[in-house]
């Protein structure tokens, strides 16, 4: 019977041995990403910096340059005009935003400039205050979520596991942010969700591997930590790649068939899944060897429940 096997049975990769190179690579990438974020910054959408977006269909083919000059003369900040899905479909962005009354006047000015025959598909205005609140709110929520997960893992496993998981998570987030900065992709409200999805995928992946490490530690009382981690990683490698593949396939479908908006959202998630899988294997787990893991604590706890019993049954 045919079965698709992405990873053959019984691999014996020395992943912890490779980790020196892999972690150096990860550090280099993260540093690069930080450098880009510091010096280049993110390409924030109007959700964050405030501004106007108009998606319009004009009756005839517009003279883009003239339109740009005309809108530029309105004094509403930087103008960007994009054509999409046909020559007379335009996406117009204006950089400056005010609160209150000026907003309405600005919209009216643009409407006058575009003429009465324009059909508006989408009009968005965000005041500067709303944007900055969104940022602080998102940062607060994500920080607390990370702390909560760290605590949970520390309680269920050991504090070392929590630290490693969060380190891997920070690595993933840094790379996603870096990607937004390097390829200047627009960072919008939806992008936050993309980062969160990546984080939740990555933590899930990491916990599965940690679980196996804990189990192996209990089962093989005398094996040294490095071998325990290597064994656990190899045993879970098949599952790790399978789940990454199914999830990637689903996101690929989003990217290919989801239309413009969803595709922009799917791309960072695809990268995030790959990065998250990488970090669970090559960052989170090998890092455990550096953190003086104490076997007696892990072995002692609830030995009878799962790991212990199965070891007895099989062994």
């Amino acid at each position, binding site marked *: 019977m045919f*079965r*698709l096997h992405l990873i053959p049975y019984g691999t014996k990769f020395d992943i912890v041995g490779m980790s020196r190179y892999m972690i150096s690579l990860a550090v280099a990438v993260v540093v690069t990403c930080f450098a880009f974020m510091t010096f280049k910054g993110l390409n924030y959408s109007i959700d964050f910096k405030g501004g106007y977006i108009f998606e319009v269909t004009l009756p005839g083919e517009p003279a883009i340059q003239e339109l740009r000059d005309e809108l530029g003369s309105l004094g509403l900040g930087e103008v960007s005009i994009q054509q999409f899905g046909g020559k007379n479909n335009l996406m117009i962005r204006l950089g400056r935003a005010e*609160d209150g009354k000026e907003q309405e006047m600005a919209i009216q000015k643009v409407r006058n400039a575009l003429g009465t025959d324009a059909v508006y598909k989408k*009009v968005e205005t965000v005041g500067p205050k709303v944007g900055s609140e969104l940022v602080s709110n998102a940062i607060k929520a994500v920080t607390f979520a990370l702390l909560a997960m760290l605590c949970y893992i520390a309680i269920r496993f050991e504090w070392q596991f929590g630290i490693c998981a969060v380190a891997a998570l920070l690595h993933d987030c840094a790379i996603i942010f870096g990607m937004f900065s390097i390829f200047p992709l627009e960072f919008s409200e939806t992008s936050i969700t993309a980062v969160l999805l990546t984080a939740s995928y990555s933590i899930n992946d990491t916990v599965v591997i940690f679980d196996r490490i804990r189990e192996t530690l209990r089962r093989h009382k005398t094996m040294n930590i490095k071998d325990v981690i290597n064994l656990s990683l190899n045993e879970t490698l098949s599952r790790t790649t399978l*789940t990454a593949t199914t999830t990637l396939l689903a996101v690929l479908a989003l990217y290919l068939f989801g239309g413009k908006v969803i595709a922009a959202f799917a791309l960072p998630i695809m990268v995030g899944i790959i990065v998250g899988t990488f970090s669970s294997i090559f960052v989170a787990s090998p890092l455990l060897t550096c953190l003086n893991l104490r076997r007696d604590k892990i072995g002692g706890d609830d030995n009878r429940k799962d790991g212990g019993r199965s070891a007895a049954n099989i062994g």
Partner: protein
Amino acid sequence: MLVVSRFKYAYTIAVCMLGTLFAIPSFVSQETFDKLPGFLQHTVSLGLELRGGSHIQLEVDLRSVEKERQESIVDETRKLLRKQNIKYSKISVQSRGDGSAIFINLKNQDDVPSVQKMLLKIEKQLEVSVSGAQITAVISEAFMDEFAKRVVSESIEVIRHRIDETGTTEPTILRQGRDRIVVQRPGAGDSAEVKKVLGKTAMLTFHAVDEDMESIEAVNPEQKPNLPAKPGVVYLPEDRGNKTMYVPVKKQHSLTGKSVVDAQVTIDNRTGMPAVSIKFDSIDGARKMAELSTKYLGKQFAMVLDGKVLSAPVFQSVLNDGNAQITGNFTMEEATQLALLLRAGSLPAPLNVVEERSVGPSLGADSIVSGKNATICAFIFVALFMLASYGKFGGFAVVSLTANIMLLFACLTLLGATLTLPGIAGIALSIGMAVDANVLIYERIREEIRSGIRAIIAVAQGYRMAMTTIVDSNLTTMVGAIVLYEFGSGPIRGFAVTLALGALISMFTTFSLTKLLIHVWTRRNGNKGFTI
């Protein structure tokens, strides 16, 4: 041997059936939907970017209300200071930080305690501080918070009335944060109409016109002319078609629009212009109107809306029946709007638009179609991959994946959650992640079989061994999701709900439905031995 109790059989099947039942209305056409029994006529509600509509975020201008209150305190204090002959060099409201405060400079430092007492008597929520002969007073932050709460909920009430009056269906009006209100309405049309209705405070007041002073014409309509000052009198602008007049009115209003119970558009008999006829409530408004019209018979009386004089007619007769007519330089449309605003009541504070989004229905429909296609493709991709990897057992996983999607839709429907564009993406993604639990178990079973034990025992063993892993990983996700929900806002919250539901449902289907399917299959074929 995998054990599944009879009870578990029953409730697994019941939950899946119920889930499918509640999920179905979201997928059927409108005609079929109308034929469904009432309790099933609920679908997942779609976010604005999917069905088209407008979203406006308003900020309640609390500072201006605060300043207004401070100014009236200053007026009162000034009066008392004069009466008690306390000398001062300055008394005013000035901006300080992002708010404002009352400043009083006294000539004699000995008067400080009595003035302090005076201020607190006028408004006990003041926080008074003294340095030398200068007194500074602000309204306490705690009181302002309490006040903000009241003003925002009153504003929401008024906004709801006003929007209902425009005939908009299903508007969503929500408080957000301390001083924000979000108004969402589905359907076509842009938000200009709604903004027009919300942009006005619609504070209607009636003031006596000061007879000693004359109205002054503004030479430049953009600029306020130099106006003579008289205590207790303010000049307010009146638009008279081609020119703007500044009319001197008494600061203290005699009557407000709060006592108005009904307002309708009429045509003024004398001028033939549109006007608004109003009816006062009988207890307070009508009696006051009668008193005023007796007192000011034959004299000018100004009707002021949001600081602008609408008109200042002369009382021709005593108004006894509580009916009055507001005239002004109205067009029919303006009169209709004024009548609407008066019926709905005035806002307790001005509102500023800080965010606005509107999406045309065609764009929304496109998004739904592409979202649907993407989700279906995601399902097909994942299903094929599972079948290729695990054969029959992959098939079981696909069945429970289907149940997973149904249950997710059912939960979203029952919770009244709103499906947004990232929400659709979240569903497609959870299709990918939902099979993770199955993959974990199957991989574990494979390992057990390889270690040489009988397949049927390996299945039970695999299930048991994978259990902790699945619970741990899903609980970590849940912990994260709960915190995100607690501290996040808007899209982050929506995401947290989908995430938590996805984790819960995938645990349920794996431990009940997939297990049940495998149980049934192994009972028939298990003794022959099998591989996954």
